[in-house]
């Protein structure tokens, strides 16, 4: 919550529209989306299925092209920002290459971006440490649990020092217990690295627990119904989820989701 205003703007969307051309005519995935994300913020996108969360994240990563409005990342177009290595992207599935070891997978972006050999090894060791996978570098993906694989994919996104981390339901396929642990670790990682994180989720507690800013979206056409700046402190133990503030924020998110739905009826 504190001083969002004097933070440098990292992601800025103004009146963003995005329509997909399909066989049955255009699908309006995003309609008039306006949002500003400051440096070092943790922003969650929450909303029912099909409200355009993924599409918005992909547009930021220049994987989709908006059909209207303005979108800038670090003051550049998303395309330019990508070439400047502005973001790491974490997909719902870890998507590790089965023919590469964990270290080899983390090294993939470094090889593609042409980092020197010694630097590659140094960074791999460093980010594996960061996600608590030191010592697993020589293992192959199938030798790791789903949660560990997802941590490896986060390490891969961190390896080249992008200052924006975009995560599309990264823990969606994991069970609740593993998820809690990873959420806690993600918060620590965020505190240590100071990255700006865009995080898509279906879970209200997850969104409230993690974020400094919660963006509530509604479908058909996908738009933002509420933006909540979290009053929770930076330091967040897991049991903060029983605090009054937490429950209040969660309540407001739920209200926002309900309001979004009433449009359809």
């Amino acid at each position, binding site marked *: 919550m504190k001083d969002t205003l004097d933070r440098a703007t990292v992601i800025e969307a103004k009146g963003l529209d995005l329509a997909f051309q399909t066989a049955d005519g255009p699908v309006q995935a995003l309609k008039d989306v306006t949002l500003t994300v400051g440096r070092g913020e943790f922003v969650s996108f929450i909303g029912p299925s099909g409200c355009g969360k993924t599409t918005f994240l992909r547009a930021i990563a220049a994987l989709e092209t908006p059909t209207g409005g303005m979108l800038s990342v670090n003051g550049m177009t998303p395309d330019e920002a*990508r*070439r400047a290595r502005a973001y790491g992207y974490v997909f719902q599935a870890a*998507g590790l290459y089965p023919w590469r070891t964990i270290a080899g997978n983390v090294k993939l972006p470094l090889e593609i971006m042409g980092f020197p050999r010694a630097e590659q090894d140094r960074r791999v060791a460093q980010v594996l440490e960061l996600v608590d996978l030191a010592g697993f570098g020589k293992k192959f993906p199938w030798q790791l649990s789903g949660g560990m694989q997802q941590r490896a994919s986060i390490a891969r996104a961190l390896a080249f020092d992008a200052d924006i981390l975009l995560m599309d339901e990264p823990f969606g396929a994991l069970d609740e217990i593993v998820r809690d642990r990873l959420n806690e670790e993600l918060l620590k990682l965020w505190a240590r690295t100071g990255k700006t994180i865009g995080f898509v989720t279906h879970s209200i507690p997850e969104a409230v627990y993690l974020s400094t800013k919660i963006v509530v979206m509604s479908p058909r056409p996908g738009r933002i119904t509420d933006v909540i700046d979290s009053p929770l402190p930076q330091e967040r133990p897991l049991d903060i989820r029983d605090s009054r503030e937490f429950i209040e924020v969660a309540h407001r998110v739920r209200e926002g989701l309900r309001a979004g739905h009433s449009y359809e009826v």
Partner: protein
Amino acid sequence: MRLVVPILTVVAAIVALWYAGSVWMNSQWTLDQAARNKQTLSFTQIVRDTMDQKRPVLPAPHQVAEGLWQGVFGQAVTSKRSLVYHAWITLSATLLGFAIGAGLGVLLAVGIVHNRAMDMSVMPWAIASQTIPILAIAPMIIVVMASIGVTGLFPKAVISAYLSFFPVVVGMVKGFRSPDAMQLDLLRTYSASRAQTFWKLRFPASMPYFFTSLKIAAAAALVGAIVGELPTGAVAGLGARLLSGSYYGQTVMIWSALFMAAIVAAAMVGVIGALQAVTLKRMGMRQ
């Protein structure tokens, strides 16, 4: 070990059926002979005779086994009567054609995956090429190449290549396209070039498809080389053995050559399978 019993059971069943078939199909000749000589034969006599004819309609398994044994171990491998000699003639054309076909197949697949025009244009022609019966095309290839002075190994290899490139094209296009949209998107977020996408993702992802299509291509290449030996009346090669066997009614010779071809094909597929196992293991991929 547990597999041995079922496998042996099936083999035994096939051999038994084969013997029954031999008796049934060869007995006509035995009975005709007997009638001509005004003899009557007991069942045991009939059976014994059908097992041991010079030109049986269907040679008994032990006759084929003996023909195979004689052909492989009964002569110097350089002898014109050695099956090893003939198998080598065919195999050398097969290997050359297989190498050309597999190489061409991979190159075409790379083109198809990277170039829209090739994607639209090459596949239909590749499919069309395989709908033409090889027996119709083989003589033309042999004759045309002979007329420009190319004879022997190479024309046969061309026919082998003609048959073997197709499974490789189909398999490799599928293999190169096997990475899903998410994996391609991931590389896009790194601004990877097409060459990087190919070498880092498409190529390694295609490996299981590569070996599978090579196995099919190897068998097809062998068929191509044998067919290539038929229209010229070639004097050497398994195809030549099949041809002269049928000229002289030497059914045992035909069957021995057929089994030799099967052994050669099995050996090639086996070698490719071993390479596959080693490569995929090296790559850390479980099979």
